[in-house]
C-alpha cells in the first residue's frame, strides 16, 4: 500500500448525526439505539460480525432503508419521509456497493454522466469532463468507452467510486467495497479510497480490511447484534480493545 496519508484534521462541523435510532424488520430488531455523530472530514470504519447490522446502518443514512424510531440528520437536513429531503440527502451522499452495481447497458462514461445529467441537470459536455476527471483520478480514463462487462472487478469497483464522485457528494458510504474482489484487485481499490481520504472526503466505510482501517480511519466502530459496542481511534481500538466481544472478533479476523 502507498505511504500512510497524514491523518487529516477533522472539523467540528457535523456531517451526519444519528440519534437514538431504532429499526425493525417486521418484528426483528436490527438496529438498537444507535447514536453516532460524524464530523466533516472524518473517516470512519465500521466492522463487526456478519448480520450485525452494519450494512443496514449505512443504508439507513441515505434512506435506502427507512428507520422507525429516532432521527438521522445529514448535513443539516433531517431525514423524513418527505421525498424532497430524501432527494437532497441522496445527492449529497455517495454510495459504493459490494457488487458495484454498475449499469451494464451503459458505457463507463455514460454510467458516470447519467446521474449528473438527469439529476443535477449538468450539461452533457460538462458532465463528461467531470467524469473524465474522476476516471483519471481512479486511473482508468482509457476505459471510458468500454462497457462494465469488459472490465475486471477491481476496475469496475473503481468506476463505481468514480460514478459516485461525479455527483460531488459531501459524504461517501462504502459497503464492503473490496469483499467481492480478487486479492490483487483489492489493492487497486484500497489505493483509490486512500487517495479519497487524503483529499479530505468524509467517509463511512464498512470493511474488514484492517490495514486500511489503521492507515486512514479516524475512528473504528464495532457493531454487534444491531448495537454499537465499541468505538475508538484505530490504535487503541486494535491494540487495546475494551469489550470482550471486540476482543473475540479481532482475534478472529486478525488471526487468520
Amino acid at each position: 500500500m502507498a505511504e500512510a496519508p497524514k491523518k487529516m484534521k477533522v472539523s467540528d462541523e457535523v456531517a451526519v448525526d444519528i440519534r437514538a435510532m431504532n429499526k425493525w424488520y417486521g418484528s426483528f430488531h436490527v438496529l438498537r439505539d444507535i447514536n453516532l455523530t460524524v464530523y466533516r472530514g472524518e473517516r470512519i470504519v465500521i466492522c463487526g460480525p456478519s448480520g450485525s447490522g452494519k450494512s443496514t446502518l449505512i443504508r439507513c443514512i441515505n434512506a435506502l432503508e427507512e428507520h422507525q424510531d429516532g432521527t438521522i440528520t445529514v448535513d443539516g437536513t433531517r431525514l423524513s419521509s418527505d421525498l424532497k429531503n430524501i432527494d437532497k440527502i441522496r445527492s449529497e451522499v455517495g454510495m459504493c456497493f459490494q457488487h458495484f452495481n454498475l449499469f451494464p447497458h451503459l458505457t463507463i462514461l455514460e454510467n458516470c454522466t447519467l446521474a449528473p445529467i438527469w439529476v443535477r441537470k449538468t450539461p452533457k459536455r460538462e458532465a463528461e469532463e467531470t467524469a473524465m476527471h474522476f476516471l483519471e483520478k481512479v486511473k482508468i480514463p482509457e476505459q471510458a468507452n468500454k462497457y462494465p462487462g469488459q472490465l475486471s472487478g477491481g476496475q469496475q469497483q473503481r468506476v463505481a467510486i468514480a460514478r459516485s464522485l461525479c455527483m460531488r457528494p459531501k459524504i461517501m458510504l462504502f459497503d464492503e467495497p473490496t469483499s467481492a474482489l480478487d486479492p490483487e484487485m483489492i489493492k487497486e481499490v484500497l489505493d483509490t479510497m486512500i487517495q479519497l481520504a487524503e483529499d479530505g472526503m468524509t467517509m463511512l466505510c464498512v470493511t474488514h480490511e484492517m490495514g486500511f482501517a489503521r492507515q486512514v480511519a479516524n475512528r473504528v466502530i464495532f457493531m454487534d447484534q444491531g448495537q454499537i459496542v465499541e468505538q475508538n481511534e484505530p490504535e487503541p481500538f486494535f491494540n487495546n480493545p475494551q469489550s470482550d466481544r471486540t476482543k473475540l472478533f479481532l482475534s478472529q479476523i486478525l488471526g487468520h
Partner: protein
Amino acid sequence: MSTAPKVQAFVRHDTLPASAPPVSETGVVRWLRANLFSSVGNGIMTLIALYCLYLLLAAIVPWLANGVWRADSIRDCREQLAGATGGCFAVIAERWPQLVFGNYPSEHYPRAILAFVLLFVALAPVLFVELPRKMLWFTGLFPFIAYWLIWGGTLWVPTLALAGVVAGFFVFRALERMSFFGALVAGLAATLAFWIVLVGPLSGALASIVPLRLDYVESREIGGFMINFILGTSCIALSLPLGIALALGRQSNLPVIKMICVMFIEFIRGVPLITLLFVASVMLAYFLPPGTNFDLILRVIIMITLFAAAYMAEAIRGGLAALPKGQYEAGDSLGLDYWQSMRLIILPQALKISIPSIVNIAIGLFKDTTLVSIISMFDMLGMIKGPILSSTDWFGVYWELYVFAALLFFVFTYGISKYSQYLERKLATDHR
C-alpha cells in the same frame, strides 16, 4: 479549522434487549397497510380489485349454486330450473364416462384406471430422484404394460415387443466396443427387424398355445380425456430422445447433418400444429406405400412427436450451450470418444439444465392435444363438440361441458407446473 473534536471512545458492556417494534409495524393493521393500502393509489387499486372480484363471483356463484345435477335431458334441466339461472351439470353427471374414456368399453374401465395409476408409479422415480433407482426398471416396462392394459389383445405382443427391445439392446452391447454410433444403429435395426419379422407370427403362434389375453379394444373406441393423456405422455416420452438427437445434430460440426437438423426444426416450429395434424389425417397416407393404412392415433402420435421433438431440441440445445467448453475438453483429454462424452458427461448436465424448459414444453404439448378434435378425433373436446352436443338429449347445453374440460386440464397442467417450480428450486441447490 478549529479544534477537532476528540474521538469519543465508547464501550458498551451490556447488550440492549431487543424490543418490540412500534404498533405500526405489526399485526393485521400493518399487514393491511403494507399489502393493501400502502398509498392512495394502492388503496384505489385494492377497491377496483375488490369490485372486479365481486363482479366475477356474482356471475359465477348463482350459476354454480343453482346447478342441476340430476336430469335426463336438457329439457328436464330446464323444467327443474324453471327460469332461474343455473348450470345443467346433469350432462356431466350422465356423460362423464364418455368425457373421460370416450367409447372405451365400460367393463374395461378398471384396466384403463390401472394403467393410469401405474403411470404414476412409473413416473415417480423419474420425477423424484430420492426414490430407489431400482424402480426405473418398472418405468422401462411400463409402456408395454400400459399398451397391453389399454388395448388388450394377447400379452404376447407386448412381451415380444419387449423381447425385441432386449434383443436390440444385446446387439448394441455386443457391438458397443467397436463404435457406439454403429452399435446404436444396429441395435435399433435389430429391434425393428425383430418387431417386423418375428412379433406378428410368433405372437400368433404363442397365443394359440397359451392365450393370455385381454379383450381387444379398437383404437377408435379410445377417446375423451384418456386420449389427451395417452397422446400427451407418449408424445412427450418419445419426443425426448428424438429431441436430443436433433439438438446434438444441430450442434454438430458436420455441415450437412447440421443443415438437415436445422431445416427440420425450423420447418416444424414454423407451422401451426393443426396443419401438421391435417397432414397426419389427410396427407400422410399419400406418402406411404399404396395400401398401407395405419391407425389414426399412431399417425397423430408420430406428428405430435415430431412437433414436440423440434421444440425439445431447442430446449436441450440451450442446455448444451450453457455447458462450459471445459467440460467437452476434459472429456476429450481423458480419451473419451464423442458418444461416451455425450452420454456420460455432456447430456446428463445439459438435460438437467434444460429440465424447466422441457417441462414447459410438456405442459404446452399436453394442452395442444386438444387440437386433435379439429381432425375429428374424439378427445375430450371432440367428444363434447361431437357426440355429446349433437345428441338429442343434450343438444343445447354448452358452458357446463367446456368449463368442466377447462377445469380438468387446469388441474393437471397446474400440477405439472407446480412440480416444475419445485424442481427448479431443487436443482438450484443441488450438489452444493
